[in-house]
């Protein structure tokens, strides 16, 4: 371990860390926003459910490197454009979260839905006031998986030169120098733990009603 190197490079490492953070979080947020309506559709319609969830599952099997390289051809972006990474990771987040949102809505007890209908809730108020709040625990669990797996997939983008902590790995390999590799690993793990904890904390705050929840 060369701490003097770490000290000298700390400015650049911090910059890479922030890039990594952004590239991990933004796609999950966009993916969630897209997954909410799609997951709702999937959960409502039997036909949609199997096709949508099937398609989502297929998306996840595309190797990340292949997606990073192919997307410029599809989007017309330059190969080094970070947008490629954002779009690719959004696709993965979406693939995971469509199923999660659909499962979350599915987890709402039928008694509760029936009671809401019988009291005279219309469809959309019922979704926002009753179903989505009750789907939070399941959606949050999926969100944790998505955000942590994104942290790890982002580093692959080092191979196409996008700035983030993965560059420390390629640099270490090229220089046969262990310090940046260790620093990269530690920071990736820290970032993953931090984001995971953040989602967990937010979910607890949103579900004080759960046994063992935030209150009491």
């Amino acid at each position: 371990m060369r701490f003097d190197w770490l000290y000298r490079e700390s400015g650049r490492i911090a910059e890479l860390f922030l890039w990594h953070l952004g590239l991990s979080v933004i796609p999950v947020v966009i993916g969630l926003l897209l997954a909410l309506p799609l997951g709702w559709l999937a959960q409502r319609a039997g036909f949609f459910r199997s096709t949508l969830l099937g398609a989502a599952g297929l998306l996840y099997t595309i190797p990340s490197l292949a997606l990073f390289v192919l997307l410029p051809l599809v989007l017309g972006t330059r190969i080094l454009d970070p947008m490629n990474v954002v779009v690719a990771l959004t696709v993965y987040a979406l693939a995971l979260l469509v199923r999660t949102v659909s499962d979350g809505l599915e987890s709402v007890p039928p008694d509760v839905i029936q009671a809401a209908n019988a009291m005279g809730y219309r469809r959309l108020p019922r979704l926002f006031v009753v179903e989505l709040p009750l789907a939070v625990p399941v959606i949050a669990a999926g969100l944790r998986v998505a955000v942590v797996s994104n942290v790890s997939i982002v580093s692959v983008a080092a191979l196409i030169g996008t700035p983030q902590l993965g560059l420390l790995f390629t640099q270490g390999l090229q220089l046969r120098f262990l310090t940046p590799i260790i620093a990269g690993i530690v920071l990736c793990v820290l970032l993953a733990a931090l984001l995971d904890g953040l989602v967990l904390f937010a979910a607890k705050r949103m579900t004080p009603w759960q046994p063992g929840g935030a209150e009491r």
Partner: protein
Amino acid sequence: MITFDTVSKHYRGQTVAVDKLSLTAPTGKLTIFVGPSGCGKTTSLRMVNRLIAPSSGRILLDGEPTDTMDVAVLRRKIGYVIQNAGLFPHRTVVQNIATTARLNGTPKDQALRIAHDLLERVGLSSAFANRYPWQLSGGQQQRVGVARALASDPKFMLMDEPFSAVDPVVRGQLQDEFLRLQRDIGKTIIMVTHDIDEALKLGDQVVVLRTGGTLAQVATPQELLARPADDFVADFIGRDRGYRVLGFAEFAKGGVPLGAEPTATLGATPETLRQIATDRWVLVTDPLNRPLGWADVDSLKGPLRDGDLNLSGTLAVEGSSLRHVLDAVLSSPSGRGVIVGQSGELMGTVTLSHVAEAIEAARTGRLGTQP
């Protein structure tokens, strides 16, 4: 008033669920749909607030057809209680109760005030107000479910097996409390149950349905017991019809002569007991004159203790039915049934022959009023 006008429900390729049902649930009364599984009772109930759409026929609320109303507006007019309460797990007890008032446009503060009042009304302390449903027992959740249905002060209520999911003791309590509540609020209610005893106990009017969704009989509980329309109804009501009809014969004051009963208190010696005893058994009361049990004078060795008491006798509260009075007599080791007042104090005892006379009088009275 809820009116069913030749209402049918059939599912494609399936047997008929409800077949040309016509009946009226009168205003301010509790009408009970009862029948074996597959008789269409729940389907009929759910067609009232259009959770299920009728295949043909109409349902009217106070003469207004429901099929042309906006479905959400229709449902907000009708209180709805289901078996497992169906409370929102993410809302506190008062928030749950306030839901129906909020849906009907009541401002939040006022809705919460209504909810707090109702909490007390259904027999829950205000300590429950801010708890979440999972922190409540099944019986408590069911009370909250009833309160929620009442929060919008609807004219009509539908109750789908509201007391089936709780144990028999709690069920009895909930039924008694609900009867008391209904006496105050006088809602027009349709309730579904598979339990004929519940139907006979709670209903002002009982609708018996048979498999295939046809009407078997509409009658008051007394009529149903006294004159079942056919074999199906008689079978469905079951045995003990003659005994159970006593449940509707009120034991009027003076209807059965009360005998004075000598009593002793705990700590009395065998000698004292023998002096006051009229036979082997002496009734033991607490200092407030509330009956504790019977003491067997013959087997007593020392001063009377708790463990010496025979507790087999039931107590009949003054004003309760002849069924309770008869049971008090039959269960008492002395053969004398203990009658107590509203606060549990001893009023006197009755003998089997006196009860038999009262039963005979009630029976001839009932026959006399038959058309």
